[in-house]
């Protein structure tokens, strides 16, 4: 600062003393405007990086497979039993809902043969897997975060480490495997019930003969869409398990921390579901 005022003389000194103040104001304003963006970006990088690392560690534990098989079987049962009812109920309503929506079009255009194909397409390929995934994340993912979070704050995870047991092999991989497999099966079951719900709504609410619906569905050749839905289920399961384990293992501070972690977990899972859904469809179709 003194050097500059020597170079530019008295008039320049006045300008120089004015300029920094102006620049300070600009940089302060910029900081207020930009800091949240930068912080959000850095936080997102931390989260994505942490999840990627967790994924790498999962794969390292799986090739060659060295993880807790008994725990995996227990997780299969827990994940499946826990979410079956909610998936069935959701699917029934989603199927019926999609049919009623299509019914609006059909009433305007009179193209009743469209009903089966349009409903089947939306349910099997897009809406079904996404909504089943969201409910699964609320039911199983959130529960998983709460469970691991409680283990973390009660130092059970540290106790495992002290005993020389790798928490990733013992806790995370079994959940990862169980959720990937189970969400495929649940999507399969869910598709069945969604079609059932749609058929019921077709006959009872929209008033189109259910045979027209079946015919449209079968002539639509939706096997590809059905398989794509199952593939989505597989990736959703992986994403939900990684997200929920990640948040569960980094819980800090008491009951409140667990609540916050579950909240973060379901939000991140929802984002992951929509992004994965987009990527799978773009690569598949």
């Amino acid at each position, binding site marked *: 600062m003194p050097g500059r005022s020597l170079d530019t003389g008295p008039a320049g000194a006045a300008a120089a003393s004015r300029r920094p103040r102006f620049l300070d104001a600009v940089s302060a304003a910029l900081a207020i405007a930009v800091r949240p963006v930068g912080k959000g970006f850095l936080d997102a990088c931390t989260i994505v990086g942490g999840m990627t690392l967790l994924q790498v560690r999962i794969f390292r534990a799986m090739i060659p497979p060295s993880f807790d098989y008994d725990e995996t079987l227990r997780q299969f049962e*827990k994940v499946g039993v826990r979410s079956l009812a909610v998936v069935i109920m959701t699917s029934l309503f989603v199927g019926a809902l999609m049919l009623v929506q299509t019914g609006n079009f059909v009433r305007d255009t009179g193209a009743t043969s469209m009903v089966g194909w349009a409903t089947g397409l939306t349910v099997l390929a897009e809406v079904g897997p996404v909504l089943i995934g969201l409910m699964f994340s*609320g039911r199983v993912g*959130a*529960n998983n975060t709460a469970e691991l979070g409680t283990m973390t704050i009660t130092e059970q995870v540290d106790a495992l480490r002290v005993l020389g047991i790798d928490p990733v092999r013992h806790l995370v991989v079994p959940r990862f495997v169980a959720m990937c497999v189970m969400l495929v099966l649940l999507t399969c079951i869910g598709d069945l019930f969604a079609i059932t719900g749609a058929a019921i709504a077709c006959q009872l*609410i*929209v008033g189109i003969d259910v045979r027209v619906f079946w015919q449209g569905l079968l002539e639509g050749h939706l096997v590809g869409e059905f398989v794509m839905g199952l593939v989505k289920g597989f990736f959703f399961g992986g994403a939900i398990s990684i997200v929920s384990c990640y948040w569960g293992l980094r819980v800090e501070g008491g009951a409140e921390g*667990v609540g916050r972690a579950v909240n973060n977990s*379901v939000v991140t899972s*929802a*984002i992951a579901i929509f992004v994965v859904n987009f990527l799978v469809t773009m690569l598949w179709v």
Partner: protein
Amino acid sequence: MSRTAFRIPAPPEVVVAPARLLGQVVRALGHRFPPSDRLFTQMHNVGNNSAVFISVTLGFLGLILVYQGCVQTLKVLPDLSGVGAAFIFAMVRTFGPTITGMMIATRVGAGIAAEIGSMTVTDQIEAMKVANSDPVSYILGPRFVSCVVMTPILWVFGTLVGVLFGYLMGHWRFGIATQTFLDLGLVSYHDVVIGFLKALSYGIVIPVLAADAGFKARGGSEGVGWATTTAVVNASFAVIVLDFVISTLSFLLGY
């Protein structure tokens, strides 16, 4: 009392408890409206802090719906002019309100349940009661009002974001002209009203279900986890059921 298996809850328990809570909060609001500073804090939390989340999810939804719509239409006919109008219709009436509602159930519902749940397990709710302050009015009041006000606003916001991203997909990937795509021909006043009604009903139901779960939390951190999970599942499911009920009624009434 099983916390592990989701049971289809018996109608009395799962409907009556939130309904009673709804009655309580409405009565409490009529009695004493929350002060504006606490209201604005909550509105900021429900509305502004959900904006990015809803933009991301509804944006990807818009992209993928238009992509699928165009690809499937191209299998039958080479004319994509109808995709935009149908997409906007579906966004306004179903996907906009419902996916926005599910996202609010996920973010805000879980948040309310986590907050109230941790207040319940640490006796803060009882401390309020013994100080003669009504926790329903004090805690749920501002959150309820913010959800009722902000959910319809987020519905408008989410629908606009979804349509914008859908338009980007349709315009750049499939070359649909702007005027052809942004065709509001299929959207009537009914559809806007129905979309609004859906959003409003989600805004009423989500905070009540979440708070109900939060007030029922027992035990330490497990109780809070249970409350948060229950809130997300119940609120999301309620959104789907309400969507179905309102859609069916409007269909049967001919709107």
